[in-house]
């Protein structure tokens, strides 16, 4: 029973924490805290936080392995959905505020500008993940298949980083930093696969 209580408090707390960046953005928007080009600010902020949440979500598994704190997994779905939430806002800003549903220019953009093509693809790939994030869907797909599907997040994160890298005007240090973080997170997974394979081989030889 005390354990139940702890989660009952922690989860909403993390949820509220995750809402802070957008709450701050909205507050700024209505209190003169944005630049004279607010649509650009909204685009940048939602994009930044999509990438940040992707990194945080992808850090859960490595952190869990390193710390042994298995309950971290309880936050993974929520954090993943926050990736989608911010990605959706970023996409909506582009479609609505930036281009005001001007389909012609947007289609041209997606086709002609590789960074938009990548960003758009990365976002679209998150849709099935958001849809199948429920327990019901895990059951429906089966754990193995569900897990396989959700590896799409690696593609989204990679596309997201390249999307950022290709759009900056000159100073590529920030996108490179995201790239470095992503590389570390992916290397950890690669390392784990190698180790698991070795473990399996050893077990095989022992029997």
């Amino acid at each position, binding site marked *: 029973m005390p354990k139940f209580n702890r989660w009952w408090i922690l989860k909403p707390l993390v949820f509220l924490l995750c809402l802070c960046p957008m709450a701050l953005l909205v507050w700024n928007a209505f209190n003169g805290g944005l630049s*004279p*080009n607010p*649509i650009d600010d909204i685009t940048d902020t939602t994009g930044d936080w999509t990438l940040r949440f992707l990194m945080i979500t992808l850090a859960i598994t490595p952190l869990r392995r390193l710390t042994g704190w298995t309950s971290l997994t309880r936050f993974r779905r929520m954090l993943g959905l926050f990736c989608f939430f911010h990605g959706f806002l970023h996409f909506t800003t582009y479609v609505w505020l930036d281009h005001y549903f001007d389909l012609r220019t947007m289609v041209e953009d997606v086709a*002609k500008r590789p960074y938009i093509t990548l960003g758009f693809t990365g976002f679209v790939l998150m849709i099935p993940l958001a849809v199948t994030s429920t327990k019901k869907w895990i059951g429906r797909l089966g754990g193995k298949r569900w897990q396989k599907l959700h590896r799409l997040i690696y593609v989204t994160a990679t596309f997201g980083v390249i999307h950022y890298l290709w759009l900056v005007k000159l100073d590529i240090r920030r996108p490179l930093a995201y790239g470095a973080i992503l590389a570390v997170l992916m290397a950890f997974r690669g390392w784990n696969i190698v180790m698991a394979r070795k473990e399996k081989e050893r077990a095989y030889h022992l029997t």
Partner: protein
Amino acid sequence: MFIKRPADIKYSEVTPESLYHNRREFLRTATATLGVAAVGTILPGCVNAATSEPVQAKPKGPYDTTEKVTPFEDITSYNNFYEFGTDKGDPAVNSKNFKPANPWMVSVEGMVKKPMKWSLTDLIKGIPVEDRIYRMRCVEAWSMVIPWNGVPLAEVIKRLEPTPAAKYIVFKTLNDPNQLPGQRDRFLLNWPYTEGLRLDEAMNPLALMATGIYGKPLPNQDGAPWRLVTPWKYGFKGCKTIATIIFTDKQPLTAWMEASPREYGFYANVNPEVDHPRWSQKTERRIGEFFRRPTLPFNGYADQVAKLYTGLDLRKNF
């Protein structure tokens, strides 16, 4: 201040301080608009009217636009001036302590009758300061309308007497990493910032050496104490805080050409037909407006400058 303006023209008459406004209003209105537009009951034309202040600049000269001027606050808080940081809000903050030397010395070099160091005061002495309300189109696809004060570049060039061999004029920003902290970052551009014009472009009456905006001395973040303004070209051509002028017979390598030759050319004329390799230049967002507006060839100054480029392939010479 060494910047003397003719007393008869006061920009404060044209644009009262009351137009200090409307960022808050902007989003509130935009949000309201979106709500209404979502149910599809509003005409796009109404929205612009609703989001904008009823400020109308009075044209004073033949080159002035009658479009709404951008508020002083926006012109001075949204700047690309990497010497003071790469975020557009940085220059306003990081240039606070910059005090342009007085007298401001300008080194005039190369193919001129007499290469020498001028004080800015002497360099523009006697040339009447003019008011010019120009559109400013950034290569990043946003734009402003700026009421500049300054002297025609042509007058300055006449005073400097370039030799007949001179074909180009080159501008360089002050090179002083102590005063311009962005210059300590070797990872960015090759400092000092370098820009240039063909001499016939520079002699065009539109080309202005600005010493102020809104009748006030040029703010640091906008390139104090003086800067180049070429309204038919993308904003980055407007070299700021100029300390060196060189006359030469060779097309100079400008800062952005050097950083990314595929994306930035020498001419950098505003051209909706030639996209930046990574984004479209067909439309722009005017600061303070919600909807994008079409970008005009030569930023709307084709009548004045198109003749400079007859026979030149503007796709190749972007």
